[in-house]
């Protein structure tokens, strides 16, 4: 009999079978959302998903799922069906997501760099911290124009302008015998506060932007440049970035369509679902004022990926998540198709 080997790394692990080909299943705990789809899909019942509520809430130091390496037959179904790629299955070091015969979800999240204005709204909103928008701002000095000059003979080096300057453009040395005043024209925005606050009228300054408008400013220097990066490993395609993007640069395609229903009568507001949801869909609603009633738990379903993690974690069976449509690439294998289709009857 060919035995599997298991190698545990922190809370993740690798299960491997080396024979005709090397089959390897890798579990990444930090990616797992605890939805339990792998557990119900595994044809040999080798997977046990833990209680995600206490694990995420009390930061318990145990893996979110366990796979019995003696039962596992390394078919890779759990990997193919995991909606967030927490399980990666490779054959001879090639991931099945790169092998055409294996079905995979049709899901994506993309940011169009041409359209993106690098506002970083998506980066802040992303519940999985999967987005980074590195950006470089235009130089301030290129966005203003003006003149500034200090009459060193008149200046008494009192330091008032230094303290008042909102952009830290003025540096006054007040030590007797070493007195000096320096103005950094790259920082100055010609706001004229120094000029107005100087007690001895030592500063002459004028803002040209006001009189000449943008006449001698090159607007191409005023552009914020940058790029975008979505970490495919942690992204769950929830749609926050698409929803929040002010210029429609982010596009998300989800693998599931479905419904999310909360039975407010059964809900006891324990908050487990809120803590478990990987997509920040659920929240306790703000009170709408005295003598008004709000639901126990509120939902923003447009961000829901219908993974069912909340339903699984809810201690009072108050949540019902249904998948109505699964989008995946075609495969000739009936058993694999059956498993993908079975998601609709979870």
């Amino acid at each position, binding site marked *: 009999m060919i035995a599997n080997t298991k190698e545990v790394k922190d809370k993740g692990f690798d299960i491997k079978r080396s024979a005709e080909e090397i089959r390897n299943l890798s579990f990444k705990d930090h990616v797992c959302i605890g939805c339990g789809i792998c557990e119900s899909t595994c044809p040999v019942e080798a997977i046990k998903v*833990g*209680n995600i*509520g*206490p*694990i995420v*809430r*009390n930061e*318990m130091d145990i893996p979110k799922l366990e796979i019995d390496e003696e039962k596992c037959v390394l078919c890779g179904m759990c990997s193919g069906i995991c909606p967030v790629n927490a399980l990666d299955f490779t054959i001879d070091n090639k991931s099945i997501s790169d092998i055409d015969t294996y079905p995979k979800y049709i899901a994506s999240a993309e940011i169009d760099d041409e359209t993106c204005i690098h506002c970083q709204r998506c980066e802040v909103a992303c519940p999985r911290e999967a987005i980074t928008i590195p950006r470089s701002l235009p130089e301030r000095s290129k966005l203003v124009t003006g003149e500034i000059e200090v009459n060193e003979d008149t200046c008494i080096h009192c330091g008032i302008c230094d303290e008042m300057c909102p952009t830290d453009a003025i540096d006054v040395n007040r030590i007797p015998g070493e007195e000096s005043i320096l103005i950094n024209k790259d920082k100055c925005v010609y706001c004229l506060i120094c000029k107005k606050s100087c007690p001895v009228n030592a500063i002459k300054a004028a803002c040209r932007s006001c009189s000449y408008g943008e006449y001698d400013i090159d607007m191409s220097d005023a552009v914020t440049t940058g790029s975008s990066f979505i970490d495919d490993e942690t992204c769950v395609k929830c749609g926050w970035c698409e929803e929040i993007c002010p210029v429609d640069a982010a596009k998300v395609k989800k693998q599931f369509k479905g419904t999310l229903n909360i039975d407010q009568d*059964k809900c*006891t*507001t*324990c*908050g*487990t679902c809120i803590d478990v949801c990987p997509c920040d869909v659920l929240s306790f609603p703000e009170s709408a004022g005295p003598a008004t009633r709000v639901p126990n738990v509120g939902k923003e379903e447009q961000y829901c990926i219908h993974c069912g993690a909340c339903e699984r*974690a*809810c*201690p*009072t069976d108050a949540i019902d998540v249904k998948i109505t449509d699964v989008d995946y690439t075609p495969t000739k294998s009936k058993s694999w198709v059956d498993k993908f289709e079975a998601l609709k009857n979870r």
Partner: protein
Amino acid sequence: MELNVNQDNCLGCGVCVVACPVNVSISPEVSGGHGSRTEEIIMMVENGVIKLFSKEKCEKCGTCQMFCPVDAIFLE
């Protein structure tokens, strides 16, 4: 994973009794701070300390543990 109590640590504050969603479902009066009328619930404070009655009903959501100020109730 199982629900456990450490009665030596327990202050008898009863937060877990009220926070537990299963308790509240079985015996809604506990959410008002009253004692339960039935022993069907998971946990109750008795003589100043927490006591487990039907721990097999625990759904393992971790809410009690999150609210307990002294780690007297926990999943392990």
